[in-house]
């Protein structure tokens, strides 16, 4: 459902993505790993067009993103994103954070949006925080609200940009558990992460990126146990 064809991205002179080609299928959980600066986050941000690819083609459900006729707001409704720094709206309650976009973008009625929000909060284990404000929540709780907020738009794919990197260690588990549950529900997910345990357990496929390219890919078992490329081997030996 997501196709990347020879995607390049330059930031001025800096060549961040050097021809990335890949395909993500419906229901697949793809984990992107790699050293910092390898272009993982940039690639993810290209998929919902927070970054504009300089060259190449990105299609979501067949719709080409970098095309003048494409309504990018429409595409983004189906492509949810969870950020490293949560990015909850601090001036709104948890419920309002979740209901804002469904109400304003999808035109969902207040009562219905609220009901959905409460269901989603139950799903991420935060039913008691509906009226709280983001600053009253721990990092792990904030990230779970952010996931609920993304889910409220009923996206067809969820992008996770290092969702646990800003969390204290004891809170990482609660966020990963929610992500696991989503994967079990069949959600299509692309996850940039340093959580190798998660990649191994939940990922259908792991992409190893280095210097703006996908160097190696495979099922987690294969890639972690028998990495073929020397760069993958070097990276894994440092973190495992």
């Amino acid at each position, binding site marked *: 459902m997501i196709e990347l064809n020879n995607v390049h991205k330059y930031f001025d002179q800096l060549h961040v993505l050097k021809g990335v080609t890949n395909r993500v299928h419906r229901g697949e959980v793809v984990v992107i790993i790699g050293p910092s600066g390898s272009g993982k986050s940039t690639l993810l941000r290209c998929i*919902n067009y*927070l970054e504009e690819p300089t060259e190449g083609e990105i299609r979501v459900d067949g719709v080409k993103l970098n095309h003048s006729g494409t309504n990018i*707001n*429409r595409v*983004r*409704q189906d*492509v*949810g*994103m969870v*950020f490293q*720094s949560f*990015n*909850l*709206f*601090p*001036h709104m309650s948890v419920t309002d954070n979740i209901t*804002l*976009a469904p109400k*304003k*973008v*999808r035109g969902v009625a207040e009562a219905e949006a609220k009901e959905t929000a409460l269901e989603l909060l139950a799903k991420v284990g935060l039913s008691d925080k509906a009226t709280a404000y983001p600053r009253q929540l721990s990092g792990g709780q904030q990230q779970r609200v*952010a996931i609920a*907020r*993304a889910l409220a*738009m009923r996206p067809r794919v969820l992008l996770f940009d290092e969702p646990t990197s800003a969390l204290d260690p004891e809170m990482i588990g609660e966020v990963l558990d929610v992500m696991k549950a989503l994967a079990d529900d069949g959600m299509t997910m692309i996850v940039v992460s340093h959580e190798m345990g998660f990649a191994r357990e939940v990922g259908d496929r792991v992409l190893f990126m280095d210097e703006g390219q996908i160097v190696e890919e495979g099922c987690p078992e294969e890639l972690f146990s028998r990495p073929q490329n020397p760069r993958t081997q070097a990276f894994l030996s440092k973190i495992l």
Partner: protein
Amino acid sequence: MRLSDWLVLPEILPLMLSGLKVTVTITFFSVFTGLLIGTIVGLARLSRNRLLYILTTIYVEVIRGTPLMVQLFMTYYALPEIGIHLPPMIAGWVTFSVNSGAYVSEVVRAGIQSIDKGQMEAARSLGMSWGQSMRYVVLPQAFRNIMPPLGNEFIMLLKDSSLMSVIAVPEVMRYAGLMVGRKGGYALPIYATSGLLYLMLTLPLSMVVRRAERRLAKGD
């Protein structure tokens, strides 16, 4: 000066108070339109559209670089020469709105820039348009942060409205000047009273501003 000069007070006070009503009214309306202009121009100055950016930058620089008095005279005395006649109150309101808009736009621009980029990205990633993201996510936070400077702008405007006396707007200083002229004296009680009337308004306002500043500093 004799102490008995102050006995003129009961005589002048009614007129001064009616002047005060005009001062407050015209300031209030100017603040409102100034805020409107300032927000639009502030957004335009952040726009990637070159023309919009250049036009609004010229506006801000011209207004901030010329005396308010000149702007007031342009509106009231120069515009009639090209066929635009505005009554004093309207001329004052228009001038002050346009003037305030330039200053407010800089405050609004800084306010928007103070909001983490992740807020806009999160809103956009949910499918909201740029306008919706601004309106529901970025601007409410930006305005909270700029309440203190906006309050100060409000106070400046209130005091500067005394300049409108030169185009015969019947506000506090207009009446003060008229009465000093008519009575041939009493400058001290009359101008002191004028000053006090402004102070009565600006003191509570600056207290509110200071409280807002403290609350923001606490990060609440």
